[in-house]
């Protein structure tokens, strides 16, 4: 039984050494090259870094970033990808939680990465400089011997309502359960070519990184700026003969909003998986009409349950106002619904979606309080401890065993494929001197974040301030300054009045 993702890499290196594993605009690397480079850089990291703490990886969108993740794994460390284009304040919060043993970067990002290494008081290493010398077999072998399948693999940071990002720590085994289940469900084979949309620091990228290692398929990193140029993107996908994609729903939505398929179609794409938010029927219909022979899969799940829990294979032509169900659990995922009284919801009843099984994350890194609040004992199993994760999402099982998604318990939304806590945006805006009161609303139909506020501050200055605190996708698109926010008789902000002002259904 395989217990470590490196075994997948080593197997692919034996079976298909000369096939392309990863490709970007400038470089294509084979499985053999991936293996050799990861071992070389991993050897140097293992020799130089004795502190067992995670290694923060601050690199761009290239194949070398993926190799560097794998190199960190060889070195016996956990990798934590960090997007250096995030606001400095946010990166500092992440580093404060992470307390990394080192920062791994590349020449192109050295300046920024060095600044953060200094803040985190740890050394910085450049992958180009480490990619020399021989593989230190005794060192790497010694590391591998003590690794079990529960060894932590990566830490991916996600939004937290208090404004402090949470670092989701996931094991080799959890990741391998998900990747196996996903690859099997999508029927991905060696001949397939995957088109990667996800930023490499984001949870969705685990598919693009690890599916090739298991299946022998290759992954092409589509340039980010092509996602606003539908014809250019489709021409590139045709040229690279992309057969399968696992994208955020908003990736598909944005392209159709920009008029995709009008002049240029897709010629080789056969398998499409989307996740991250509810897919509008009118968007999926356009994709189905233009790709009548393709398979479409709606996927659902949180980072804490290793990317996804359930999938729904769309078996019919959808209508414009149709809401897709989220389907059935993947292999190794136990997905059930709990009512407020702690009992299991019957078929047809609503309940909070809960997950248990080997795919649960190990917890939030260096955050016992929030770990204990979210990963709790399953109340349905009283005879022995069974751990489960409460997603905060509401669901309902249909008679035929298919799960439907019925919204959130709290104010978390999925926006442009990202998880966004509206409270976190309010907390950030509330920090600005010159903001008296503020309220954040979300228009699900138009995918727009609204911010209403009162106070001295000018709209433009507030947006500029928010850009120093929050990632770009969390910045409200509509900012409305008011004398006072409308109030209910009990003194609370009248959200329904603000909703109608924003034209939100």
């Amino acid at each position, binding site marked *: 039984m395989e217990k470590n993702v490196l075994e997948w890499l080593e197997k692919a290196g034996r079976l298909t050494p000369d096939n392309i594993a990863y490709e970007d605009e400038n470089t294509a690397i084979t499985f053999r090259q991936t293996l050799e480079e990861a071992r070389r850089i991993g050897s140097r990291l293992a020799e130089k870094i004795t502190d067992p703490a995670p290694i923060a990886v601050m690199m761009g969108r290239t194949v070398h970033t993926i190799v560097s993740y794998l190199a960190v794994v060889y070195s016996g460390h956990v990798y934590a990808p960090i997007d250096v284009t995030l606001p400095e304040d946010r990166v500092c919060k992440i580093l404060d939680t992470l307390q990394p043993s080192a920062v791994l970067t590349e020449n192109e990002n050295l300046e920024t990465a060095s600044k953060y290494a200094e803040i985190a008081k740890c050394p910085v290493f450049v992958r180009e400089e480490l990619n020399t010398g021989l593989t230190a077999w005794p060192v790497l072998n010694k590391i591998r011997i003590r690794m079990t399948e529960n060894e932590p693999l990566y830490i991916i940071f996600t939004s937290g309502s208090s404004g402090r990002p949470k670092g989701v720590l996931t094991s080799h085994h959890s990741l391998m359960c998900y990747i196996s289940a996903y690859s099997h469900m999508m029927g991905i084979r060696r001949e397939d070519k995957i088109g990667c949309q996800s930023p490499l620091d984001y949870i969705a990228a685990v598919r693009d990184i690890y599916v090739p290692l298991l299946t022998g398929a290759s992954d092409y990193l589509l340039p980010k700026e092509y996602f606003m140029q539908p014809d250019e993107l489709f021409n590139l996908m045709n040229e690279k003969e992309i057969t399968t994609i696992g994208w955020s729903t908003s990736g598909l939505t944005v392209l159709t909003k920009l008029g995709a398929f009008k002049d240029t179609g897709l010629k080789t794409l056969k398998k499409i998986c989307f996740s991250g938010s509810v897919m509008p029927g009118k968007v999926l219909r356009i994709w189905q009409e233009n790709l009548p022979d393709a398979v479409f899969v709606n996927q659902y799940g949180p980072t804490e349950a290793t990317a996804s829990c359930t999938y729904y294979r769309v078996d019919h032509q959808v209508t414009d106002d149709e809401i897709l169900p989220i389907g059935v659990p993947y292999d190794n995922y136990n997905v059930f619904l709990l009512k407020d009284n702690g009992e299991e919801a019957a078929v047809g009843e609503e309940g909070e979606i809960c997950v248990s099984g080997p795919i649960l994350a190990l917890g939030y890194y260096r955050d016992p309080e929030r770990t204990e609040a979210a990963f709790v004992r399953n109340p349905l199993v009283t005879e022995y401890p069974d751990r489960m994760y409460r997603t905060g999402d509401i669901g309902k099982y249909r008679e035929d065993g298919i799960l439907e998604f019925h919204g959130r318990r709290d104010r978390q939304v999925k926006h442009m494929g990202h998880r966004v806590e509206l409270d976190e945006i309010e907390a950030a805006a509330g920090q600005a001197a010159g903001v008296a009161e503020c309220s954040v609303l979300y228009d699900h139909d138009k995918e727009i974040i609204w911010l209403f506020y009162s106070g001295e501050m000018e709209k433009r200055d507030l947006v*500029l301030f928010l850009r120093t605190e929050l990632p770009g996708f969390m910045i409200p698109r509509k900012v409305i300054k008011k004398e006072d926010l409308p109030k209910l008789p009990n003194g609370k902000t009248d959200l329904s009045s603000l909703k109608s002002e924003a034209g939100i259904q």
Partner: protein
Amino acid sequence: MRDRILEILQDQRPDIDFENETELVSGGLLESFDIVSIVSELDDEFDIEITPKELKAENFDSLDALTKLVESLSEE
């Protein structure tokens, strides 16, 4: 027209110096959801239709390029 386009751009992204930037798209300054909003605002404001044919980095990389694009589409 240039001033009105500038206003629309600044309204979307007050943090960008649109007068001087020349790599708005190819330099990764604008996100795809910025482009969606900008395209729909320009379409409405100038009664034009920007289609995928025009959605190329060279048409969106600077205020001048964008102004040229809107001008040529308005003439049609």
